[in-house]
């Protein structure tokens, strides 16, 4: 029994949002297993995993930015339109001026930054609610897309397609796998072990008891197992395929933004503003600057997502980005963010996004029509948030706690440790 308590305390304890996150990881695993059985093993084939990552990487990239926007207490409805607008601007300029594709990417990011500055200005410095500013932006940039593109589809050059449809090259000896992907996987395993040991070290420096060794080992084993599995899957696809470039971009962004939101002053300020704006202001947080940067960052990421989609579609079209904002917002809320701001994590949002992605993918593999898929996704969103609301009203924060309650007399002491940062941020991007 004490081992179960230890496990609960160290793996599932901590704050509400952590519990919710682990709930979602549970759901994710359940969905994967369900579809794995249902589709006779198609879900976890290399080809499918690669397809899922390249299909949903842009939504997950949006979810990163959206999480920060929502944590700061705002919302961004314009991301789809901004993505489409950036896509058409980049495609058009590359076509008209025969620019090399890296220049195209830089132009795209610059366009995103400009749009972000525009929206950030209205939100932060004029004080127009973000809902309104981005609703306006949604119309503005959708119209801009059609104005510039004449509602036409504009193709992009071959090199540019790499960021959306490219893979790691095949190098080195023939091992039956993509060697670069294998190396990445190896590095990830090493990083996981290092992070776990480092966090134990940190706990000791705080004069706090680190989690029991067996838990650390279990955690490492699970993580390494997942990474090895994913690595082999991604490395073992058809020759010429591997972990998609868009997936690598996504993982890099997830790691960078997780670090930023979790460990830096800037990240703390976003949570402070969303948690209590007035208190944050009276603690010396520059409210306007935080709001401005959060909105601006969102548009830059939307621009990136738009370019990845265009690259994958090999052309920019008038329907790009339609209702992306809803997918991104749903991912963030399924991932445990609070509607009122101040709560939520990048890794949670990624897990939330993956839940949606795998649900979509599994249902499509089963040949379920897009009408039913939308109905199911809608219900999942509602239930995920309702579950959380219910849990809060019951004062029950732990899923494991509620599962094991019937077997226990004594109520568990409130868990005090947060799970190691390594445990979720690293797992999320490769779990799919």
């Amino acid at each position, binding site marked *: 029994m004490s081992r179960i308590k230890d496990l609960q305390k160290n793996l599932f304890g901590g704050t509400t949002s952590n519990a919710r996150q682990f709930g979602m990881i549970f759901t994710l695993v359940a969905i994967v297993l369900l579809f794995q059985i249902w*589709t006779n093993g*198609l879900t*976890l*084939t*290399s*080809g*499918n995993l690669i*397809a899922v990552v*390249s*299909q949903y990487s842009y939504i997950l990239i949006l979810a990163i930015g959206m999480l920060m926007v929502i944590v700061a207490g705002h919302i961004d409805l314009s991301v789809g339109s901004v993505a489409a607008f950036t896509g058409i601007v980049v495609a058009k300029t590359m076509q008209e001026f025969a620019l090399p594709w890296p220049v195209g990417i830089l132009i795209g990011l610059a366009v995103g930054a400009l749009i972000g500055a525009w929206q950030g200005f209205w939100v932060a410095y004029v004080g127009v609610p973000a809902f309104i500013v981005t609703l306006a932006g949604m119309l503005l940039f959708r119209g801009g897309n*059609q104005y510039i593109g*004449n*509602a*036409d*589809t504009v*193709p992009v050059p071959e090199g540019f*397609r790499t960021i*959306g*449809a490219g893979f790691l090259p095949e190098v080195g000896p023939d091992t*039956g*796998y993509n060697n670069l992907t294998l190396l990445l996987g190896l590095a990830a*395993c090493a990083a996981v*072990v290092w992070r776990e040991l480092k966090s134990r070290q940190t706990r000791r420096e705080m004069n706090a008891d680190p989690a029991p*060794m*067996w838990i650390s*080992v*279990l955690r*490492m*084993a699970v993580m*390494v*197992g997942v990474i*090895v*599995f994913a690595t*082999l*899957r991604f*490395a*073992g*696809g*058809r*020759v*010429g395929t591997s972990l998609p470039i868009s997936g690598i971009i996504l993982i890099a962004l997830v790691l960078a933004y997780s670090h930023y939101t979790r460990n830096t002053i800037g990240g703390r300020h976003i949570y402070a503003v969303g948690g209590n704006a007035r208190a944050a202001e009276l603690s010396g947080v520059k409210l306007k600057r935080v709001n401005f940067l959060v909105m601006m960052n969102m548009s830059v990421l939307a621009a990136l997502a738009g370019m990845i989609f265009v690259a*994958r*579609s*090999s*052309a920019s*079209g*008038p*329907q*790009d980005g*339609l*209702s992306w904002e809803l997918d991104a917002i749903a991912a963030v809320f399924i991932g445990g963010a609070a509607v009122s701001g101040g709560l939520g994590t990048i890794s949670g949002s990624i897990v939330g996004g993956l839940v949606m992605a795998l649900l*979509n*993918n599994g249902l*499509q*593999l089963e*040949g379920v*029509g*897009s*009408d039913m898929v*939308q109905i199911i996704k809608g219900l999942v969103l509602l239930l995920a948030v309702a579950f959380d609301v219910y849990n809060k009203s019951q004062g029950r924060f732990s899923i494991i706690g509620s599962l094991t309650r019937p077997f226990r007399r004594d109520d568990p002491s409130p868990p005090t440790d947060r799970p190691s940062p390594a445990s979720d941020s690293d797992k999320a991007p490769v779990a799919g």
Partner: protein
Amino acid sequence: MRKYLTRSAALIGVAALLTLSACGSEREGTAAPTAGGSAAPAKGFAADGLIGVALPSKTSENWVLAGDLFTNGLKEAGFTSDVQYAGASTTVADQQAQISAMVTKGAKVIVIGATDAAQLTTQVKQAKEAGAVVIAYDRLITNTPDVDYYIAFDNFKVGQLQGQALLDGMKAKKPEAPWTIELFSGSPDDNNAGVFFNGAMDVLKPLIDKGDVVVGSGQTDVKQTAIQGWKAEGAQQRMDSLITSTYNGDKKLDGVLSPNDTLARAIITSVKGAGKDIPVVTGQDSEVESVKSIMAGEQYSTINKDTRKLVAETIAMVKSLQAGTEPTINDKDTYDNGVKVVPSYLLPPVIVTKDNAAESYANDPKLAPLTQG
């Protein structure tokens, strides 16, 4: 501590080994991709092979009908089928994901009615590399070497027929030139929309230049006439504005070139709403409501592109691919998708007005009753 470390190392190792043994590389046993997207595969495939059909969202009766016909037809022919529609609001991304899923499931032939003809390059390539044959259904997929066949009605011909019907209808009502008309065209992201429009203008342009036919608003550019997404409300809004801007007085509108039935009905709704006489309006697709409208004397014409025939021909094509024989092709040089000329099979369209409706729909169980008196 040491004991722990050795134990933990062992545990991690075991975990790694387990997963290693659980999943090998899929590279062994996968056929090398056929080079450069050469047309037909050398030999056929199993008689119950999976056939994927990816269609646009259910915005027109035709696509719904086609989907049903494919599901039943492929089943009768002994194939396993997977028929998918794109979602209403997320069309392109949905279709991309659906095609990927079909590839994953190992579809032998994938029939695609594209939502956006230029944005499927990656998925079509993926399909090709997995050894599937790609047939572009009704809409040509552009910017890719990986599409194998194109099957459709002759769309330029459709446009020509529409143009001619418009002239005939106006002449019947008012024998003397000039006639005042307005032009509508389909969604700019649909490759066919331009083809229809050009076909119609092939007939109308000489008369416009001569002055016999006048475009009341002066909007003759395809960018002005296009209706995004083939949406009825778009056509209705444009017609409303045209009436306000150009036909507000007693200026008479004689005819409207409409590329399909959905838009035609929207245009008629708008004209009726403004209290004007209904002009001659063309259409296409033989939708139930439009056939009723034609019989009631409102819409002038439609085009009978018998979806049954098109689907039947497509399934015939799939069957010959299964048997390993070359499918029938009747056009090898018209349809250039920007990368290659796609071998095509074109079916002839038929113009339908009130006069020949009964005859044209005689074999259609749904439409035939509508034409009886």
